[in-house]
């Protein structure tokens, strides 16, 4: 209860702070989902991505 009271009083009691919570929460949530998605894709496709294999193709010396 203490936690939910604290959350309610700090984030949702006033409309202004509730609106701010929604905006900031949306930004953080979206960044979290993006980071999670990228890490899942990178993990699953490890070895297939260019950044995994770029070191196998050293730049040709200029001549």
């Amino acid at each position: 209860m203490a936690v939910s009271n604290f959350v309610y009083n700090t984030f949702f009691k006033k409309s202004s702070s509730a609106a701010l919570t929604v905006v900031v929460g949306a930004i953080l949530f979206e960044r979290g989902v993006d980071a999670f998605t990228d890490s899942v894709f990178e993990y699953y496709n490890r070895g297939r991505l260019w950044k995994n294999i770029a070191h196998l193709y050293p730049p040709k010396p200029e001549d």
Partner: protein
Amino acid sequence: MAPVLGQFGRTVFSNFAKGYSHPKVYLSNTSSSFREMSQGKKILLTTGCFLTTAAAGLAYSLNESVKAIDLNLHPPKYPWPHKGHRHEPELLAALPFRKLELDKAIGLYDAASLRRGWQVYKQVCAACHSLRFVAYRQFVDLFMTEDEAKAEAAEATITDGPDANGKMFQRPGKLADYIPSPYPNEEAARVANGGAYPPDLSNITVGREGDEDYVFSLLRGYADPPAGVELGENQHFNLYMQGNAIAMAQALYNGLIEYDDGTPATASQMAKDVTHFLAYCATPELESWKKYLFKWTIISTCLFGLAWYYKRHLWASLVYRRVAYRDVNKKH
């Protein structure tokens, strides 16, 4: 809303508590006499219906002939990195020993294969086929560095213009340029290829039935024509081509080119790599589509959870109420 629902509930429940009896409703007792039948008759009728349906189905399927009018050989399915295995039984049999197969959902293109495929396109197919909708900038950080892509572009000669005098001029390519075509127009391409037009390969894997599997099979599908098959001049026998006669000679032979990563350039290796590269050219958006689908799944799960919570929140007062009934007629 809530007071209305509450009033409604009270009315219904108090009537019920008072022993109010609803008029009985008889459902369609004129149209069906099945309910009044004896047990034996019911069983007989049900069995009869089953048998009739089964017999009709059997007769229908026996009447269907095997459809052998389709003379085309359909390509087998191959396990592309961005599409995955589609041989489920085999997959299930090997599952414990295999990496979890999610290629179809979250598999991306294989950069090493794309890189080899671009080499094959550039050194073999580009002699006849254009790739008009693909630009050099797309390759950056997909299968080559920016410097390499710039060098690739600079090797090409691009016709640009008109300049201040109204003349077209030639210049080395830049990253933003699209890949130049081998022929200036379709007619020139036809004349050079004995009347047949080598199609643009930008969208070839989505433009043919069988997609990647078809293009790969086509490149590997050359054979000696069986006895009795007449081929026109400039035509070659191919198992997978519509009508089995194709105006493109076999393009890939073992050891035709040399890969820069040292992979042995067998004909099937080259066919696989160039097809993978062409699949990328046709659907470069595939990777972002898959990511969007993944994110959509996460986000809509969260939204569903929120909606579920909000619904419970709204209905809590109705769902968790306790109702006690008092008989108003009874003297206390």
